[in-house]
């Protein structure tokens, strides 16, 4: 494999963005720009499918590795994938074209610039998932702030400025400590190459502080309680496509970071800080579920449910059990699909009625039946009904948790019930009930593009709910080797 397939995955969206940059920005419905962006992202998706097919599932070592000297004697540009990261790349390339199809109604002005921002965002996100050098990872991780800040700030709702600032500053504050940690690792170990660091290991006496520095960054991004407050604001104000990207992919960068860096590089510290993560995760699950119950704004409700779901993810990762980590990865993927779909569902009714408040809806089941059916599917997937994708991850996480800590698992299980409560109640209030608001009768059912997007999301949600085997095959070896390496490190210390 000499063809730099990962670099082309990273670069292709940027090339598309450059191409768009030199086209003329027409007002109104800018079809050319949309087709260019769509074409680029679909090609990217096909490349990543090819990547998945030619990926060797029997080994946990990094594949398609590219290495180039970037800053001499210091940093190499190094990318590669293993079983854990490849699925996130697929998720990214799968969600982005759907985002682009969905911009029809939500983005009114400067469509071309919006698409450029989304394409650049895609590059950075793919970069995050395949970077094999800490500095390169940090670069992509931070660079993503710029397009997202603009997406929220320019195309967002009425309180967009506040939300954009909060998003940017929270994340930046978390990340600068990670930068200190990365530079420290360079001076401690003499390299920032992840593969080399896996082999070298980091002296146990430094691990605690370094772990905390990385944690501060990932905790903000995940987001974990109590630093989750930026997420509801950002979600509510961002345009639909922005919310989708944020929920489906951006949040996954932190979960991925926990697995790849916190577990991989600092095994001793991860063991020590497990109680901390457990506590925060459980609080996130229970507390934000209650908050979600009380929300009147649909987007806010789903945002809080995201925090709760990510609580499950962090819980699963730090069980340090095969099931727990696999479950977390599956949960992140399913949450990527389902939360994206839910935000799109909210976007659909918002585009028609310009309200996100739950109380302005009710009884729409007879008016827009197609929408109601798909919305129901995703609601059920979000609460983890067996047979949907959402079930697989949650079940495995709880199984891993029961193995490791009974009490935590019991409390977390309540979160599942609460999840069912707020999701079903939301669905009931929006779709069923009496039709009070007369304006709702004018609502049109899903148009072709909306139908297409939601079905695209529904198919994998159901398919992997019944048959998650292909995903497990991909991640199994990598995860079990990660745990073996972890246990080996702990035993030797």
């Amino acid at each position, binding site marked *: 494999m000499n063809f730099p397939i990962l670099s082309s995955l990273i670069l292709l969206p940027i090339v598309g963005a450059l191409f768009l940059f030199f086209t003329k*920005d027409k007002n109104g419905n800018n079809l050319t720009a949309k087709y260019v962006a769509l074409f680029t992202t679909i090609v990217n998706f096909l490349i990543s499918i090819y990547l998945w097919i030619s990926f060797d599932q029997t080994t946990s070592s990094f594949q398609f590795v590219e290495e180039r*000297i*970037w*800053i*001499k004697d210091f940093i190499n540009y190094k990318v590669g994938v293993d079983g854990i990261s490849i699925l996130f790349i697929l998720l990214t390339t799968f969600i982005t074209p759907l985002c682009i199809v969905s911009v029809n109604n939500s983005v009114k002005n400067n469509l071309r610039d919006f698409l450029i921002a989304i394409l650049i965002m895609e590059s950075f996100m793919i970069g995050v998932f395949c970077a094999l050098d800490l*500095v390169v990872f*940090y*670069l992509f991780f*931070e*660079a993503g*702030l*710029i397009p997202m*800040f*603009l997406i929220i*700030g*320019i195309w967002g709702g009425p309180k*967009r*400025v506040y939300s*954009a*600032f909060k998003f*940017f*500053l929270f994340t*930046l*504050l978390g990340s*600068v*400590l990670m*930068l*200190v940690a990365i*530079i*420290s690792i*360079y*001076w401690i170990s003499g390299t920032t190459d992840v593969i080399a660091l896996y082999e070298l290991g980091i002296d146990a006496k430094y691990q605690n502080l370094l772990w905390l520095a990385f944690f501060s960054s990932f905790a903000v991004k995940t987001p974990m309680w109590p630093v989750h407050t930026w997420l509801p604001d950002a979600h509510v104000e961002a345009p639909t496509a922005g919310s989708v990207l944020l929920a489906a992919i951006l949040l996954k960068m932190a979960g991925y970071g926990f697995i790849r860096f916190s577990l991989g590089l600092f095994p001793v510290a991860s063991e020590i800080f497990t109680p901390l993560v457990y506590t925060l995760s459980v609080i996130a699950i229970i507390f934000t579920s209650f908050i979600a119950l009380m929300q009147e704004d649909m987007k806010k409700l789903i945002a809080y449910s995201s925090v709760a779901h990510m609580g499950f993810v962090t819980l699963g990762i730090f069980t340090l059990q095969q099931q727990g980590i696999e479950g977390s990865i599956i949960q992140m993927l399913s949450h990527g699909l389902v939360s994206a779909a839910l935000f799109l569902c909210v976007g659909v009714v918002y585009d028609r009625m310009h309200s996100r408040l739950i109380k302005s809806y009710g009884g729409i089941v007879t008016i827009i039946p197609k929408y109601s059916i798909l919305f129901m599917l995703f609601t059920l997937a979000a609460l983890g009904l067996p047979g949907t994708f959402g079930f697989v991850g949650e079940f495995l996480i709880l199984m891993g948790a029961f193995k490791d800590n009974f009490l935590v698992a019991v409390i977390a299980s309540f979160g599942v019930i609460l999840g069912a409560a707020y999701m079903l109640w939301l669905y009931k209030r929006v779709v069923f009930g009496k039709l009070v608001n007369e304006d709702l009768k004018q609502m049109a059912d899903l148009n072709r593009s909306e139908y297409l997007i939601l079905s695209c999301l529904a198919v994998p949600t159901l398919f992997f709910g019944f048959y998650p085997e292909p995903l497990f095959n991909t991640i199994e070896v990598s995860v079990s080797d990660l745990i073996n390496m972890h246990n080996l490190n702990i035993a030797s210390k």
Partner: protein
Amino acid sequence: MNNLNLVLPEIFISLSVMFLLILGVFKKNSSQLTFNLSLVTILVVIIFTVNETFSINRITLFNESVVIDRLASLMKIITLIGGFLVLGISSSYLKSFKIFKIEYPILILSSVLGMMIMISSNDLMVFYMGLELQSLALYVLATFNRDQLKSSEAGLKYFVLSALSSGLLLYGCSLIYGFSGSTNFDVIANNLTSNEYALTFGIVFILVGLAFKISAVPFHMWAPDVYEGSPTTVTLFFTMVPKIAALTVFVRFLYVPFLNLIDQWQMIIVFLSIASMIFGAIAAIGQTNIKRLVAYSSIGHVGYTLAGLATGSNDGIQSSIIYISIYVIMNLALFSCLLMLKRNEQYYEDIDDLSGLSKNHPLLSLSLLIILFSLAGIPPLAGFFAKFYVFKAVIEQSMYFLAIVGLLSTVIAAFYYLRIIKIIYFDKEKEKYDSDHGIWLKFSLTFSTILILLYFIFPSKLIEVVSRITII
């Protein structure tokens, strides 16, 4: 005397200054001619400098009072390029204020000459001479728009406070001379005995004087007023060029004679650095005038540069040099944008004047976006790498406190840069600005923005040049 060709650049500039003065006095309406000739002079000097000195490792001249080394030649070239671009950009601005006079290029040339002498100095006397030459020229430049109250005020303020700091500096020099028996840096280093308190006092006085020149907190009070009052092109000159020279003097002064006293001065530099970073970040938040804001942001950036110097290692010095080079480029870009905010021969410099710029001037706004994110230190732009190298050097010396404070202050600083971006992109649009700008302005903006944006592709080039500079 066979080494005279090594100071050919300085000699050439001084001769040109005299020639241009005579030309300007005797020939009527010769402003444009002097301008062009000055530009040519700087170009020629750049070529001389590259040719004569760039490959020289280290040579001392004139009883070891002047040193030509890699640091000197690189910093001279940056200074000269800075001077060249400022001069080029200036002409249309000066014309619209009707102050397009022969004195302007001559003053710029003489201050550049002063800076070159400072950069090459290996002796307290030579250093002070260069410092005063550049300062005197800068006082006059600050008041160049003499019919405006603010400009005169700026010049006067700068003059009085700067004279005070020069006094302190001279006092420090005399103390050091008294207790080490020489003004030459190398000789001082040999005669040094660390238990002389007077020497420490001397170092402190000189550091105060130098901190004043680069406007590090707590000696920054003059900067916002002077930056705001001076003509914009002069402000641009202030924020870029004298800082390079003063930084070089910092390096020479601290690392040649007083390296052994690092315990004595390291804490001072750390304090200056932390105070500048935090104060620069916080004070900039409330500003409404862009030039004042730039003043505070430049105070912050000086803090980061000093953080590199505080480390006491070659890596630290190199990172500071990289920082200041990238900072110069970012500042050039920012001011080019600022000079483009012109409508009917009137320049606008309030932050609110940027409101909704993205609707009418998408390209200009995009450049500003890139520049501001780079100033805030967000990857993958050049400003990030500047900070990255500095903190890499700082953490190498295990100065974690400095690193963490510095990085946290970048978060605070990010806030006010974001505020400008918010005003440009999220707010209501105003009237259109003129879009017929001079070729100089367009060139410097495009050139510097592209450098900032694409720096990450070839970051090694700058490092290669800088890593050959070893002082210790």
